[in-house]
Protein backbone atom coordinates (compact mmCIF):
# COMPACT_ATOMS: atom_id res chain seq x y z
CA UNK A 1 0.00 0.00 0.00
CA UNK A 2 1.38 3.35 -0.96
CA UNK A 3 0.53 5.10 2.24
CA UNK A 4 2.66 2.73 4.23
CA UNK A 5 5.61 3.13 1.97
CA UNK A 6 5.21 6.86 2.12
CA UNK A 7 4.87 6.87 5.88
CA UNK A 8 8.55 6.15 5.71
CA UNK A 9 9.06 9.74 4.69
CA UNK A 10 7.11 11.05 7.64
CA UNK A 11 8.59 8.53 9.98
CA UNK A 12 12.11 9.00 8.89
CA UNK A 13 12.23 12.80 8.95
CA UNK A 14 15.21 12.23 11.15
CA UNK A 15 16.11 9.13 9.22
CA UNK A 16 16.93 6.47 11.67
CA UNK A 17 17.96 4.24 8.84
CA UNK A 18 15.18 1.81 8.16
CA UNK A 19 16.31 -1.60 9.22
CA UNK A 20 15.47 -4.27 6.73
CA UNK A 21 15.99 -7.92 7.38
CA UNK A 22 16.59 -9.71 4.12
CA UNK A 23 13.50 -8.29 2.43
CA UNK A 24 11.15 -9.50 5.13
CA UNK A 25 10.08 -5.96 5.89
CA UNK A 26 11.28 -3.64 8.59
CA UNK A 27 12.58 -5.08 11.84
CA UNK A 28 11.59 -3.64 15.16
CA UNK A 29 14.20 -1.24 16.56
CA UNK A 30 13.81 -1.63 20.28
CA UNK A 31 15.60 1.65 21.08
CA UNK A 32 13.36 3.73 18.83
CA UNK A 33 10.26 1.86 19.96
CA UNK A 34 11.09 2.37 23.62
CA UNK A 35 11.49 6.09 23.07
CA UNK A 36 8.27 6.33 21.04
CA UNK A 37 6.31 4.57 23.77
CA UNK A 38 7.86 6.88 26.37
CA UNK A 39 7.07 9.93 24.23
CA UNK A 40 3.48 8.78 23.80
CA UNK A 41 3.15 8.58 27.56
CA UNK A 42 4.77 11.98 28.03
CA UNK A 43 2.40 13.64 25.57
CA UNK A 44 -0.60 12.20 27.40
CA UNK A 45 0.83 13.64 30.63
CA UNK A 46 0.49 17.08 29.05
CA UNK A 47 -3.30 16.81 29.08
CA UNK A 48 -3.76 16.61 32.87
CA UNK A 49 -0.97 19.21 32.93
CA UNK A 50 -3.12 21.44 30.76
CA UNK A 51 -6.14 20.69 32.96
CA UNK A 52 -4.17 21.95 35.98
CA UNK A 53 -2.82 24.93 34.06
CA UNK A 54 -6.32 26.03 33.03
CA UNK A 55 -7.95 24.81 36.26
CA UNK A 56 -5.78 27.13 38.32
CA UNK A 57 -6.56 30.14 36.15
CA UNK A 58 -10.35 30.15 36.41
CA UNK A 59 -12.48 31.25 39.34
CA UNK A 60 -13.20 28.92 42.27
CA UNK A 61 -16.65 28.01 40.98
CA UNK A 62 -15.39 26.70 37.62
CA UNK A 63 -12.33 24.63 38.50
CA UNK A 64 -13.76 21.16 37.91
CA UNK A 65 -15.77 22.24 34.89
CA UNK A 66 -12.61 23.61 33.30
CA UNK A 67 -10.46 20.58 34.15
CA UNK A 68 -13.20 18.36 32.77
CA UNK A 69 -12.77 20.00 29.36
CA UNK A 70 -9.28 18.54 29.11
CA UNK A 71 -10.29 15.18 30.54
CA UNK A 72 -13.27 15.04 28.17
CA UNK A 73 -10.80 15.35 25.30
CA UNK A 74 -8.85 12.36 26.68
CA UNK A 75 -12.01 10.29 26.83
CA UNK A 76 -13.73 11.41 23.61
CA UNK A 77 -10.74 11.64 21.30
CA UNK A 78 -9.13 8.63 22.95
CA UNK A 79 -11.93 6.56 21.42
CA UNK A 80 -12.57 8.61 18.29
CA UNK A 81 -8.96 8.49 17.13
CA UNK A 82 -8.71 4.72 17.10
CA UNK A 83 -12.15 4.31 15.51
CA UNK A 84 -11.80 6.69 12.54
CA UNK A 85 -9.38 9.52 13.39
CA UNK A 86 -6.22 7.71 12.36
CA UNK A 87 -7.84 6.49 9.15
CA UNK A 88 -8.90 10.03 8.27
CA UNK A 89 -5.48 11.48 9.04
CA UNK A 90 -3.03 8.88 7.80
CA UNK A 91 -5.00 7.00 5.17
CA UNK A 92 -4.09 7.72 1.54
CA UNK A 93 -5.51 10.86 -0.08
CA UNK A 94 -9.27 10.91 -0.51
CA UNK A 95 -11.59 13.64 -1.84
CA UNK A 96 -8.73 15.09 -3.83
CA UNK A 97 -6.38 15.19 -0.86
CA UNK A 98 -8.77 17.07 1.38
CA UNK A 99 -8.52 14.23 3.83
CA UNK A 100 -7.14 10.72 4.11
CA UNK A 101 -9.14 7.53 4.24
CA UNK A 102 -8.48 3.84 4.47
CA UNK A 103 -11.12 1.35 5.53
CA UNK A 104 -8.49 -0.98 6.88
CA UNK A 105 -7.38 1.63 9.37
CA UNK A 106 -10.81 1.83 10.99
CA UNK A 107 -10.29 0.50 14.52
CA UNK A 108 -6.61 0.21 13.51
CA UNK A 109 -7.30 -3.28 12.16
CA UNK A 110 -4.78 -3.26 9.33
CA UNK A 111 -1.80 -2.30 11.46
CA UNK A 112 -1.97 -5.25 13.79
CA UNK A 113 1.33 -6.68 12.50
CA UNK A 114 2.92 -3.58 11.00
CA UNK A 115 6.41 -2.41 11.82
CA UNK A 116 7.12 0.95 10.18
CA UNK A 117 10.33 1.44 8.19
CA UNK A 118 11.58 3.59 11.05
CA UNK A 119 11.70 0.38 13.09
CA UNK A 120 8.70 1.30 15.23
CA UNK A 121 5.44 -0.65 15.48
CA UNK A 122 2.72 1.33 13.75
CA UNK A 123 0.64 1.03 16.91
CA UNK A 124 3.21 3.21 18.67
CA UNK A 125 3.04 5.80 15.88
CA UNK A 126 -0.76 5.75 15.81
CA UNK A 127 -1.01 6.17 19.58
CA UNK A 128 1.63 8.90 19.59
CA UNK A 129 -0.36 10.80 16.95
CA UNK A 130 -3.53 10.12 18.93
CA UNK A 131 -2.20 12.06 21.90
CA UNK A 132 -1.73 15.10 19.66
CA UNK A 133 -5.33 14.77 18.55
CA UNK A 134 -6.33 14.77 22.23
CA UNK A 135 -4.40 17.82 23.36
CA UNK A 136 -5.26 20.02 20.37
CA UNK A 137 -9.00 20.40 21.05
CA UNK A 138 -8.24 20.56 24.80
CA UNK A 139 -6.18 23.71 24.15
CA UNK A 140 -9.22 25.47 22.68
CA UNK A 141 -11.01 25.23 26.04
CA UNK A 142 -8.84 28.06 27.35
CA UNK A 143 -10.47 30.56 25.02
CA UNK A 144 -14.01 29.76 26.11
CA UNK A 145 -13.53 28.82 29.76
CA UNK A 146 -16.22 29.50 32.35
CA UNK A 147 -19.16 29.79 29.98
CA UNK A 148 -19.77 26.61 27.97
CA UNK A 149 -21.89 23.56 28.69
CA UNK A 150 -20.27 20.15 29.04
CA UNK A 151 -22.42 18.47 26.41
CA UNK A 152 -21.85 21.35 24.01
CA UNK A 153 -18.12 20.91 24.54
CA UNK A 154 -18.23 17.16 23.95
CA UNK A 155 -20.23 17.66 20.74
CA UNK A 156 -17.86 20.42 19.63
CA UNK A 157 -14.61 18.52 20.11
CA UNK A 158 -16.03 15.43 18.42
CA UNK A 159 -16.89 17.41 15.29
CA UNK A 160 -13.79 19.57 15.51
CA UNK A 161 -11.41 16.61 15.57
CA UNK A 162 -13.19 14.97 12.64
CA UNK A 163 -13.54 18.04 10.42
CA UNK A 164 -10.65 20.30 11.43
CA UNK A 165 -7.89 18.33 13.13
CA UNK A 166 -7.90 15.23 10.92
CA UNK A 167 -7.79 17.12 7.60
CA UNK A 168 -5.04 19.45 8.86
CA UNK A 169 -3.06 16.56 10.27
CA UNK A 170 -3.37 14.82 6.92
CA UNK A 171 -2.20 17.85 4.94
CA UNK A 172 0.81 18.48 7.13
CA UNK A 173 2.05 15.07 8.23
CA UNK A 174 0.70 12.43 5.87
CA UNK A 175 3.43 11.74 3.31
CA UNK A 176 0.99 12.42 0.47
CA UNK A 177 -0.39 15.46 2.30
CA UNK A 178 -0.53 18.79 0.56
CA UNK A 179 1.67 20.85 2.90
CA UNK A 180 4.10 17.97 3.27
CA UNK A 181 4.98 18.36 -0.38
CA UNK A 182 5.09 22.12 -0.77
CA UNK A 183 8.30 23.69 -2.04
CA UNK A 184 11.66 22.02 -1.82
CA UNK A 185 11.29 20.09 1.42
CA UNK A 186 7.69 20.82 2.38
CA UNK A 187 6.23 23.29 4.81
CA UNK A 188 8.24 22.88 8.00
CA UNK A 189 6.10 21.84 10.93
CA UNK A 190 8.16 19.55 13.08
CA UNK A 191 5.78 18.81 15.93
CA UNK A 192 2.61 20.72 15.27
CA UNK A 193 2.97 24.49 15.11
CA UNK A 194 0.25 24.72 12.48
CA UNK A 195 -1.69 21.52 13.13
CA UNK A 196 -1.80 21.86 16.90
CA UNK A 197 -1.14 25.41 18.03
CA UNK A 198 -2.23 27.68 15.20
CA UNK A 199 -5.33 25.62 14.48
CA UNK A 200 -6.40 25.48 18.15
CA UNK A 201 -5.47 29.11 18.78
CA UNK A 202 -7.40 30.36 15.74
CA UNK A 203 -10.34 28.12 16.65
CA UNK A 204 -10.25 29.51 20.19
CA UNK A 205 -10.35 33.07 18.92
CA UNK A 206 -13.25 32.29 16.58
CA UNK A 207 -15.13 30.53 19.36
CA UNK A 208 -14.51 33.32 21.89
CA UNK A 209 -15.93 35.84 19.40
CA UNK A 210 -18.83 33.53 18.56
CA UNK A 211 -19.84 32.91 22.19
CA UNK A 212 -19.22 36.43 23.46
CA UNK A 213 -17.71 37.60 26.72
CA UNK A 214 -18.32 36.14 30.16
CA UNK A 215 -20.93 37.88 32.27
CA UNK A 216 -19.31 40.92 33.86
CA UNK A 217 -16.19 40.86 31.66
CA UNK A 218 -14.08 42.99 31.67
CA UNK A 219 -15.50 45.08 34.53
CA UNK A 220 -15.53 42.34 37.18
CA UNK A 221 -12.15 41.08 38.27
CA UNK A 222 -11.77 37.41 37.30
CA UNK A 223 -8.69 36.42 39.22
CA UNK A 224 -7.09 32.97 39.05
CA UNK A 225 -8.23 30.78 41.95
CA UNK A 226 -5.02 28.82 42.41
CA UNK A 227 -1.76 29.66 40.67
CA UNK A 228 -0.09 26.73 42.42
CA UNK A 229 -2.09 24.48 40.09
CA UNK A 230 -1.08 26.61 37.14
CA UNK A 231 2.62 26.31 37.96
CA UNK A 232 2.41 22.54 38.44
CA UNK A 233 0.50 22.36 35.16
CA UNK A 234 3.14 24.42 33.38
CA UNK A 235 5.79 22.08 34.80
CA UNK A 236 3.96 18.99 33.57
CA UNK A 237 3.54 20.59 30.15
CA UNK A 238 7.25 21.36 29.97
CA UNK A 239 8.21 17.78 30.84
CA UNK A 240 5.57 16.35 28.53
CA UNK A 241 6.75 18.59 25.70
CA UNK A 242 9.98 16.59 25.46
CA UNK A 243 7.83 13.71 24.27
CA UNK A 244 5.82 16.06 22.06
CA UNK A 245 8.85 17.51 20.26
CA UNK A 246 11.62 14.96 20.62
CA UNK A 247 9.15 12.14 19.97
CA UNK A 248 8.16 13.76 16.68
CA UNK A 249 11.41 12.55 15.14
CA UNK A 250 9.88 9.03 15.21
CA UNK A 251 13.33 7.78 16.04
CA UNK A 252 15.83 7.72 18.85
CA UNK A 253 18.86 9.39 17.38
CA UNK A 254 20.70 12.63 16.71
CA UNK A 255 17.62 14.50 15.59
CA UNK A 256 15.76 13.44 18.73
CA UNK A 257 18.48 14.92 20.91
CA UNK A 258 18.56 18.09 18.81
CA UNK A 259 14.81 18.57 19.23
CA UNK A 260 15.03 17.94 22.96
CA UNK A 261 17.83 20.47 23.35
CA UNK A 262 16.14 23.33 21.54
CA UNK A 263 12.88 22.60 23.37
CA UNK A 264 14.59 23.07 26.71
CA UNK A 265 16.36 26.25 25.60
CA UNK A 266 13.31 27.88 24.04
CA UNK A 267 11.08 27.20 27.05
CA UNK A 268 13.64 28.60 29.46
CA UNK A 269 14.25 31.66 27.28
CA UNK A 270 10.54 32.31 26.95
CA UNK A 271 10.10 32.17 30.72
CA UNK A 272 13.08 34.45 31.36
CA UNK A 273 11.95 37.00 28.79
CA UNK A 274 8.36 37.13 30.02
CA UNK A 275 9.42 37.61 33.64
CA UNK A 276 11.94 40.23 32.58
CA UNK A 277 9.27 42.17 30.67
CA UNK A 278 7.03 42.09 33.74
CA UNK A 279 9.79 43.18 36.06
CA UNK A 280 10.71 46.13 33.87
CA UNK A 281 7.14 47.11 33.11
CA UNK A 282 5.30 46.44 36.38
CA UNK A 283 8.11 45.93 38.85
CA UNK A 284 6.94 42.44 39.87
CA UNK A 285 7.92 39.05 38.43
CA UNK A 286 4.74 36.95 38.67
CA UNK A 287 4.31 33.20 38.77
CA UNK A 288 1.63 33.53 36.10
CA UNK A 289 4.20 35.31 33.94
CA UNK A 290 6.68 32.51 34.49
CA UNK A 291 4.09 29.90 33.47
CA UNK A 292 3.00 31.95 30.44
CA UNK A 293 6.59 32.46 29.28
CA UNK A 294 7.31 28.74 29.53
CA UNK A 295 4.29 28.04 27.34
CA UNK A 296 5.17 30.75 24.81
CA UNK A 297 8.68 29.29 24.46
CA UNK A 298 7.41 25.73 24.13
CA UNK A 299 4.81 26.69 21.53
CA UNK A 300 7.22 28.68 19.37
CA UNK A 301 9.80 25.89 19.21
CA UNK A 302 7.23 23.24 18.33
CA UNK A 303 7.29 23.74 14.55
CA UNK A 304 10.98 24.63 14.61
CA UNK A 305 12.50 21.89 16.77
CA UNK A 306 13.75 19.89 13.79
CA UNK A 307 15.57 22.66 11.95
CA UNK A 308 16.92 25.30 14.35
CA UNK A 309 19.99 25.26 16.56
CA UNK A 310 20.41 26.61 20.08
CA UNK A 311 21.00 30.21 18.97
CA UNK A 312 17.81 30.16 16.92
CA UNK A 313 15.89 28.61 19.80
CA UNK A 314 16.97 31.43 22.12
CA UNK A 315 15.99 34.04 19.54
CA UNK A 316 12.61 32.42 18.96
CA UNK A 317 11.99 32.15 22.70
CA UNK A 318 12.62 35.88 23.15
CA UNK A 319 10.49 36.87 20.17
CA UNK A 320 7.64 34.58 21.22
CA UNK A 321 7.47 35.92 24.77
CA UNK A 322 7.42 39.52 23.47
CA UNK A 323 4.80 38.74 20.81
CA UNK A 324 2.50 36.80 23.15
CA UNK A 325 2.80 39.44 25.87
CA UNK A 326 1.94 42.09 23.29
CA UNK A 327 -1.01 40.08 21.99
CA UNK A 328 -2.47 39.84 25.50
CA UNK A 329 -2.13 43.60 25.97
CA UNK A 330 -3.86 44.05 22.62
CA UNK A 331 -6.65 41.68 23.69
CA UNK A 332 -7.25 43.73 26.81
CA UNK A 333 -7.56 46.81 24.64
CA UNK A 334 -9.83 45.20 22.04
CA UNK A 335 -12.07 43.67 24.69
CA UNK A 336 -12.76 40.19 23.29
CA UNK A 337 -12.76 37.47 25.92
CA UNK A 338 -10.07 34.89 25.12
CA UNK A 339 -10.40 33.89 28.77
CA UNK A 340 -7.15 32.04 29.38
CA UNK A 341 -5.32 33.30 26.29
CA UNK A 342 -5.49 30.22 24.10
CA UNK A 343 -5.08 32.44 21.04
CA UNK A 344 -2.79 34.88 22.87
CA UNK A 345 -0.23 32.17 23.53
CA UNK A 346 -0.89 29.16 21.29
CA UNK A 347 -2.12 31.06 18.25
CA UNK A 348 0.43 33.84 18.47
CA UNK A 349 3.33 31.62 19.52
CA UNK A 350 2.49 29.12 16.78
CA UNK A 351 2.40 31.80 14.08
CA UNK A 352 5.66 33.37 15.29
CA UNK A 353 7.31 29.95 15.34
CA UNK A 354 6.08 28.77 11.95
CA UNK A 355 7.18 31.99 10.23
CA UNK A 356 10.18 32.87 12.39
CA UNK A 357 11.88 29.49 12.12
CA UNK A 358 12.70 30.28 8.47
CA UNK A 359 15.41 32.69 9.59
CA UNK A 360 17.18 30.22 11.87
CA UNK A 361 17.30 27.00 9.85
CA UNK A 362 20.59 25.09 10.08
CA UNK A 363 22.91 25.14 7.07
CA UNK A 364 22.70 21.42 6.33
CA UNK A 365 18.93 21.76 5.79
CA UNK A 366 19.46 24.56 3.27
CA UNK A 367 22.03 22.43 1.49
CA UNK A 368 19.58 19.55 1.15
CA UNK A 369 16.82 21.91 0.00
CA UNK A 370 19.11 23.51 -2.56
CA UNK A 371 20.09 20.07 -3.83
CA UNK A 372 16.44 19.27 -4.46
CA UNK A 373 15.45 22.65 -5.77
CA UNK A 374 18.36 24.87 -6.84
CA UNK A 375 18.31 28.42 -5.55
CA UNK A 376 15.90 27.59 -2.71
CA UNK A 377 16.34 30.34 -0.13
CA UNK A 378 14.82 32.07 2.87
CA UNK A 379 12.27 33.97 0.85
CA UNK A 380 10.98 30.92 -1.00
CA UNK A 381 10.67 28.93 2.23
CA UNK A 382 9.02 31.89 3.99
CA UNK A 383 6.35 31.92 1.28
CA UNK A 384 5.67 28.23 1.86
CA UNK A 385 5.46 28.80 5.61
CA UNK A 386 3.18 31.81 5.25
CA UNK A 387 0.92 29.86 2.92
CA UNK A 388 0.64 26.98 5.40
CA UNK A 389 -0.05 29.39 8.28
CA UNK A 390 -2.64 31.41 6.35
CA UNK A 391 -4.47 28.35 5.07
CA UNK A 392 -4.52 26.80 8.53
CA UNK A 393 -5.97 29.94 10.13
CA UNK A 394 -8.57 30.36 7.44
CA UNK A 395 -9.61 26.70 7.45
CA UNK A 396 -9.73 26.47 11.22
CA UNK A 397 -11.71 29.70 11.71
CA UNK A 398 -14.31 28.93 9.04
CA UNK A 399 -14.84 25.31 10.10
CA UNK A 400 -14.90 26.22 13.80
CA UNK A 401 -17.63 28.81 13.22
CA UNK A 402 -19.73 26.33 11.25
CA UNK A 403 -19.34 23.66 13.94
CA UNK A 404 -20.01 26.15 16.75
CA UNK A 405 -23.19 27.32 15.03
CA UNK A 406 -24.42 23.72 14.65
CA UNK A 407 -23.59 22.83 18.24
CA UNK A 408 -25.31 25.97 19.56
CA UNK A 409 -28.46 25.14 17.57
CA UNK A 410 -28.59 21.42 18.25
CA UNK A 411 -27.34 20.81 21.79
CA UNK A 412 -26.69 24.30 23.16
CA UNK A 413 -23.18 25.62 23.66
CA UNK A 414 -23.22 28.61 25.96
CA UNK A 415 -24.72 28.12 29.43
CA UNK A 416 -27.46 30.37 30.81
CA UNK A 417 -26.57 33.42 32.84
CA UNK A 418 -27.79 31.74 36.03
CA UNK A 419 -25.49 28.75 35.50
CA UNK A 420 -22.61 31.05 34.68
CA UNK A 421 -23.11 33.01 37.90
CA UNK A 422 -23.37 29.95 40.13
CA UNK A 423 -20.49 28.23 38.37
CA UNK A 424 -20.07 25.21 36.15
CA UNK A 425 -18.87 22.96 38.98
CA UNK A 426 -22.06 23.06 40.96
CA UNK A 427 -24.60 23.57 38.20
CA UNK A 428 -23.31 21.15 35.57
CA UNK A 429 -21.34 18.60 37.56
CA UNK A 430 -23.01 18.85 40.98
CA UNK A 431 -19.62 19.05 42.66
CA UNK A 432 -17.22 21.54 44.17
CA UNK A 433 -13.49 21.72 43.66
CA UNK A 434 -12.52 22.59 47.20
CA UNK A 435 -13.90 21.07 50.38
CA UNK A 436 -11.73 23.37 52.42
CA UNK A 437 -14.32 26.06 52.86
CA UNK A 438 -17.11 23.61 53.39
CA UNK A 439 -17.04 21.92 56.76
CA UNK A 440 -18.67 18.70 55.52
Amino acid sequence: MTWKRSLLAAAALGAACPLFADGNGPVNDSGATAWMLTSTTLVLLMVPGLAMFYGGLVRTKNVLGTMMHSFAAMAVVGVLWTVVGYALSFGPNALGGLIGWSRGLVLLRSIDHTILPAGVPEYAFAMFQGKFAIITPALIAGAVAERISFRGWVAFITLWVLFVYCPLCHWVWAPDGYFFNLGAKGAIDFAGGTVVHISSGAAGLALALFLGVRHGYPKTAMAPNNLTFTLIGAGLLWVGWFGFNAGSSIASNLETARALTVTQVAAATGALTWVLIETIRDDKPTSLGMASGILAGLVVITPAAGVVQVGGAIALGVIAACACFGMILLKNRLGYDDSLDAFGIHGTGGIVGALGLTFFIRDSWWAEAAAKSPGWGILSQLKVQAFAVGTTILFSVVMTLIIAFLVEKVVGFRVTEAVEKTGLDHEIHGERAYGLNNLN
Partner: protein
Amino acid sequence: MKLITAIIPEEKLDEVREALIDAEIERITVTRVSGHGRQQEIVVQRGKKVVPNLIPKVQITIACNDEFEDITVDTIIRTARHGGGEVGDGKIFVQDLKECIRIRTGERGGQAI
Protein backbone atom coordinates in the same frame (compact mmCIF):
# COMPACT_ATOMS: atom_id res chain seq x y z
CA MET B 1 -25.37 52.42 64.42
CA LYS B 2 -26.35 48.99 63.18
CA LEU B 3 -24.45 45.82 62.38
CA ILE B 4 -26.12 44.00 59.51
CA THR B 5 -25.19 40.37 58.90
CA ALA B 6 -26.67 38.70 55.83
CA ILE B 7 -26.36 35.02 54.89
CA ILE B 8 -26.95 34.74 51.13
CA PRO B 9 -26.59 32.12 48.36
CA GLU B 10 -23.06 32.00 46.92
CA GLU B 11 -24.12 32.76 43.38
CA LYS B 12 -25.88 35.94 44.45
CA LEU B 13 -22.77 37.58 45.84
CA ASP B 14 -21.84 39.54 42.72
CA GLU B 15 -25.36 40.78 42.19
CA VAL B 16 -25.81 41.84 45.82
CA ARG B 17 -22.43 43.49 45.95
CA GLU B 18 -22.98 45.44 42.72
CA ALA B 19 -26.41 46.62 43.93
CA LEU B 20 -24.98 47.69 47.28
CA ILE B 21 -22.26 49.70 45.55
CA ASP B 22 -24.92 51.36 43.38
CA ALA B 23 -26.77 52.26 46.62
CA GLU B 24 -23.51 53.77 47.92
CA ILE B 25 -22.95 51.08 50.54
CA GLU B 26 -19.34 50.48 49.70
CA ARG B 27 -17.85 49.15 52.93
CA ILE B 28 -18.55 45.48 53.35
CA THR B 29 -16.84 42.32 54.61
CA VAL B 30 -17.47 38.99 52.88
CA THR B 31 -16.84 35.51 54.30
CA ARG B 32 -17.51 31.99 53.07
CA VAL B 33 -19.55 30.09 55.61
CA SER B 34 -21.27 26.72 55.94
CA GLY B 35 -24.40 25.92 57.83
CA HIS B 36 -27.89 24.55 57.69
CA GLY B 37 -31.35 25.94 57.76
CA ARG B 38 -34.41 24.53 56.05
CA GLN B 39 -32.77 24.05 52.66
CA GLN B 40 -31.76 20.54 51.63
CA GLU B 41 -29.43 20.00 48.71
CA ILE B 42 -29.15 16.49 47.35
CA VAL B 43 -25.80 15.59 45.81
CA VAL B 44 -25.13 12.47 43.74
CA GLN B 45 -21.75 10.81 44.25
CA ARG B 46 -20.97 7.69 42.21
CA GLY B 47 -24.69 7.11 41.77
CA LYS B 48 -25.51 7.41 45.44
CA LYS B 49 -27.68 10.25 46.74
CA VAL B 50 -26.09 12.14 49.57
CA VAL B 51 -27.62 14.96 51.61
CA PRO B 52 -24.81 17.13 52.91
CA ASN B 53 -25.71 18.46 56.32
CA LEU B 54 -23.81 21.67 55.80
CA ILE B 55 -24.46 23.90 52.81
CA PRO B 56 -21.98 26.57 51.70
CA LYS B 57 -23.23 30.15 51.82
CA VAL B 58 -21.74 33.61 51.74
CA GLN B 59 -21.93 35.94 54.72
CA ILE B 60 -21.90 39.70 54.26
CA THR B 61 -21.22 41.96 57.23
CA ILE B 62 -22.01 45.67 57.02
CA ALA B 63 -21.76 48.29 59.75
CA CYS B 64 -23.80 51.40 58.97
CA ASN B 65 -25.36 54.46 60.46
CA ASP B 66 -29.04 54.16 61.37
CA GLU B 67 -30.36 56.00 58.33
CA PHE B 68 -28.73 53.48 55.98
CA GLU B 69 -30.32 50.42 57.60
CA ASP B 70 -33.42 50.32 55.43
CA ILE B 71 -31.76 50.81 52.10
CA THR B 72 -29.12 48.18 52.92
CA VAL B 73 -31.66 45.61 54.00
CA ASP B 74 -33.96 46.34 51.07
CA THR B 75 -31.15 46.08 48.55
CA ILE B 76 -30.03 42.72 49.90
CA ILE B 77 -33.58 41.33 49.93
CA ARG B 78 -34.21 42.51 46.39
CA THR B 79 -31.03 41.05 44.91
CA ALA B 80 -30.44 37.90 46.98
CA ARG B 81 -33.92 36.48 46.43
CA HIS B 82 -34.43 33.86 43.71
CA GLY B 83 -37.46 34.87 41.65
CA GLY B 84 -40.47 34.90 43.95
CA GLY B 85 -38.44 33.54 46.83
CA GLU B 86 -37.11 30.05 47.55
CA VAL B 87 -36.03 28.08 50.57
CA GLY B 88 -32.30 28.78 50.85
CA ASP B 89 -32.39 32.45 49.90
CA GLY B 90 -30.86 33.25 53.28
CA LYS B 91 -31.39 35.51 56.27
CA ILE B 92 -30.53 38.99 57.45
CA PHE B 93 -29.73 39.81 61.07
CA VAL B 94 -29.70 43.42 62.30
CA GLN B 95 -28.10 44.30 65.63
CA ASP B 96 -27.46 47.52 67.48
CA LEU B 97 -23.82 48.41 67.25
CA LYS B 98 -22.31 49.78 70.43
CA GLU B 99 -19.14 51.32 69.07
CA CYS B 100 -17.10 51.69 65.91
CA ILE B 101 -13.48 52.79 65.86
CA ARG B 102 -11.25 53.56 62.89
CA ILE B 103 -7.87 52.18 63.77
CA ARG B 104 -5.87 54.59 61.63
CA THR B 105 -7.14 57.78 63.32
CA GLY B 106 -8.78 56.59 66.51
CA GLU B 107 -12.09 58.24 65.48
CA ARG B 108 -15.13 56.81 67.21
CA GLY B 109 -18.86 56.54 66.48
CA GLY B 110 -20.82 57.26 63.31
CA GLN B 111 -18.05 59.16 61.53
CA ALA B 112 -15.75 56.15 61.77
CA ILE B 113 -18.08 53.99 59.70
